[in-house]
């Protein structure tokens, strides 16, 4: 594993205007499409940037598969809910690609309240020739028109357009944290803190509530939904995670309203580890089905866990992401970092897991060899086409060369969002306002 990762090199990184990095530039989501040809990012400013992988060229073999900007558009704008006197941020919470259905690409993007379906398409021809105007746009005298002209299409420079196709709004009282497209290619679900709604991709004025955990009396609220996802190929199965560290698997075949789960995954708490922070750090921040559909991966504050769908009592595997933070809980609580929502991803073959940490570090765990590695995504340490070095964090006084003390970690540099190419070893890592793309070294 280490060797494999050592041989990774920085492919290229996209740096937004780093000197003037504003809040709006902070990347809030990263997602590859189903072929890996495109990569989309969303940011706090409501923008979506789509990158396209360059075709391989024989002249520049070292430039294999670089990702370049393909399309940039403003997906969401800040809004104000006048009825509730509430500002609605434009921040893109999630992006999900739709399976490709024709030459155009489609993605869903969501902020706290509204999901939008975007079409990204190419145009390389434009019509020419008017009857009432000449080539320079001057209006012709109508009396000089003696014959009709039908416009003719001429080739032009490739233009990429992003057009909003559907707006799915007014269905969520709370903040949307997840969207997930169903394998039936027909529906998707949107999840907020207390409810999950099911939409048909073609119908915007109606959605069905499939999960509702809102108690009749809000004072009795003990648990919120933190993430939800559809099974990759069973259209009737989905999972949602909760702030109490549990997972519920639901079967939409059984009933129209899935308030009763069909499976409940939870690890019994270890009484020795119980502390004031136990409940906060056990909250699940992300849940992902493996590509095979057999496993579930969850991320809580300190660990990544892999669950087998057939075993509800405890996780199959547990990996420590940054156990060295256990001693720093108080300060992490005070600076609110303990509430950070780290995401997690599978590699294409479900053999490696990746998730983020602080100080621009991100972690990878090989499920077969049980080896893990810490890598750093930062401009200082990585020039284009440089090889990434593993990093180590040490605790206590003695610090070896190349190690970093836990006290000198920068908690403002966090990697919350990462993505793994669906079939190749290419990863995208969002570090605040920078996007890094790493891939296996090309010989």
């Amino acid at each position, binding site marked *: 594993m280490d060797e494999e990762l050592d041989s990774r090199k920085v492919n290229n990184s996209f740096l937004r205007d780093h000197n003037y990095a504003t809040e709006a530039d902070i990347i809030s989501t990263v997602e590859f499409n189903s072929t890996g040809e495109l990569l989309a990012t969303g940011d706090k400013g409501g923008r979506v940037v789509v990158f396209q992988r360059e075709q391989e060229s024989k002249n520049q073999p070292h430039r294999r598969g670089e990702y370049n900007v393909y399309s940039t558009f403003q997906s969401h704008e800040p809004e104000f809910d006048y009825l509730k006197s509430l500002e609605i941020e434009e921040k893109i919470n999630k992006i999900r690609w739709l399976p490709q259905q024709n030459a155009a690409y489609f993605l869903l993007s969501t902020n706290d309240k509204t999901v939008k379906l975007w079409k990204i398409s190419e145009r390389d021809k434009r019509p020419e020739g008017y009857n009432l105007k000449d080539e320079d746009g001057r209006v012709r005298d109508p009396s000089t028109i*003696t014959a*009709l002209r039908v416009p003719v299409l001429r080739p032009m420079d490739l233009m990429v357009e992003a057009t909003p196709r559907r707006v799915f709004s007014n269905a969520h009282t709370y903040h949307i944290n997840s969207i997930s497209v169903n394998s039936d290619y027909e529906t998707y679900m949107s999840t907020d803190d207390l409810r999950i709604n099911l939409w048909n991709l073609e119908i915007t004025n109606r959605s069905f509530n499939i999960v509702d955990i809102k108690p009749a009396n809000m004072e009795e609220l003990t648990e919120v939904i933190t993430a939800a996802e559809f099974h990759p190929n069973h259209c009737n199965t989905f999972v949602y995670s909760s702030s109490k560290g549990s997972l519920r698997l639901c079967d939409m075949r059984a009933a129209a309203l899935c308030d009763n789960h069909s499976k409940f995954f939870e690890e019994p708490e270890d009484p020795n580890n119980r502390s004031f922070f136990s409940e906060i750090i056990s909250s699940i921040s992300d849940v992902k089905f493996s590509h095979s559909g057999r496993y579930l991966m969850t991320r809580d504050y300190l660990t990544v866990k892999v669950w087998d769908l057939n075993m509800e009592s405890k996780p199959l595997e547990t990996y420590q992401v940054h156990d060295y933070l256990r001693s720093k809980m108080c300060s992490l609580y005070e600076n609110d970092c303990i509430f950070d929502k780290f995401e997690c991803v599978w590699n294409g073959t479900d053999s490696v897991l990746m998730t983020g940490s602080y100080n621009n570090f991100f972690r990878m765990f090989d499920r077969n060899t049980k080896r893990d590695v810490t890598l750093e995504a930062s401009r200082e340490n990585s020039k284009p086409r440089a090889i990434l070095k593993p990093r180590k964090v040490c605790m206590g006084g003695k610090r070896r060369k190349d190690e970093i003390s836990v006290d000198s970690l920068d908690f403002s540099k966090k990697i919350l969002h990462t993505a793994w190419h669906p079939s190749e070893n290419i990863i995208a890592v969002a570090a605040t306002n920078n996007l890094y793309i790493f891939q296996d070294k090309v010989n």
Partner: protein
Amino acid sequence: MAGAEGDDSLYPIAVLIDELRNEDVQLRLNSIKKLSTIALALGVERTRTELLPFLTDTIYDEDEVLLALAEQLGSFTVLVGGPEYVHCLLPPLESLATVEETVVRDKAVESLRKISQEHSPVDLEVHFEPLVKRLACGDWFTSRTSACGLFSVCYPRVSSTVKAEIRQHFRTLCSDDTPMVRRAAASKLGEFAKVLELDYVKSDIIPLFTALASDEQDSVRLLAVEACVSIATLLPQEDLEALVMPTLRQAAEDKSWRVRYMVADKFSELQKAVGPEITKNDLVPAFQNLLKDCEAEVRAAAANKVKEFCENLPEDSRETIIMTHVLPCVKELVSDTNQHVKSALASVIMGLSTILGKDNTVEHLLPLFLAQLKDECPEVRLNIISNLDCVNEVIGIRQLSQSLLPAIVELAEDAKWRVRLAIIEYMPLLAGQLGVEFFDEKLNSLCMAWLVDHVYAIREAATCNLMKLVEKFGAEWAQNTIVPKVLSMSNDPNYLHRMTTLFCINALSEVCGQEITTKHMLPVVLKMASDQVANVRFNVAKCLQKIGPVLDSSALQAEVKPVLEILATDQDMDVKYFAQEAISVLTLA
């Protein structure tokens, strides 16, 4: 060509052509809708060589423009030179059949189906069938879904080798990787089966049907239920048991409630398709299970079909089946936990009385009606009340009236105004069935109370209700019972109630006739012209305009005109406006 006709006639067409590319969608849409005008001016040759190639490449446009284009092209045959050249329309429709927007694609397919009939058998094989194949083998599933709708139109008119190819393509699409395509194929399965020879239905369609009905995706399986109806009608009775019933039984017990829902929803069609014997042996128990399903959506769909199912049962055993198999389930549904189930049942249960006859209705159904009339959910009660006419024919409404009245009164006073509104709408019907005496005694006061409801929509509906009651009971009844009450409201301290008087007069004057209007209503209206509230005064002007046609000319000249003239000089702008409008409409100036 057009050039010789001179500039004047060319100009509007030139504008239309230029506007095909206008930035304003509405203008583009207008232009597309007049595409036939453009084509006519260009002539058939230029339409084929210039206009159609241009249109083929304009699939970047907005959906509504593309939709209009797809529709236009379906009736373009004459404009390209008749059936001989109809194949020129295929390229633009082909590209429209691959766009992502379902409505546009469906319209393009519809137009393709339409023009397929205008192809000669030779052209069909040379031009149309290759297009179907291209779509069926397309890279994107949008084109493959479109292909599914085209097989059935070309199949009957091509040679047997091509027929074999078409069947093969259809088979391939039924097992496509993407659920979208399998859904499209499943939804066209019945239609395709209809054009196939019976042998191929058995050898080709049945295996496909069985496979789709056990697809891993619920959304595909439920479409197979629909296909089941058409396939069952095609097959001879003796083959149904072996070829269709196993699949249907499986669907009725599917793990997914959506599939069972579909079975419940299509139950009457299925029942007709499989015939009386299978219905007795198989569908009756299946229907019982659906009525007892664990999912409320399924129970509601099945409850909706209770009447139709019972009606279509074979006559010889109808009553026994209903009494021993259906009615026990229905009794349970009356006290279902889900209100949608109860209200679905309430909307059809009354229909059973005509099927079961007087004695059974009194003994078995009446208790159910009475229970539903007392249901906690207003919608259930409303559905019972709205279907009273069925029972009236069989046992007469008197049997129910004792329970009916409290139910009506309760609905009439419901806290939700929409419920009150719904019951008002049934008042004329109830009045007709219960008769004038019962009405005067029990319901009249309710109808008057609604006139002073605090919700405008209720007051408005109440005035409309009065008009319908007068239509039923006649002007004399109106004069004795409701007109005095309405007119007395003109002295009410609340100006909204005073206005209600005017609104009632608007509604009633015509049905009450000239005499009552002139004698009783007009004086009150005129008196109200001096009301201190401007809203009342301008409503007087509007009211006078409305009742003017009912009055004779002497009353108009002597009484209405002076009042309107005074109102026309009112301080209030609106009063002036409506008074002047009334004067001019009634030609009193």
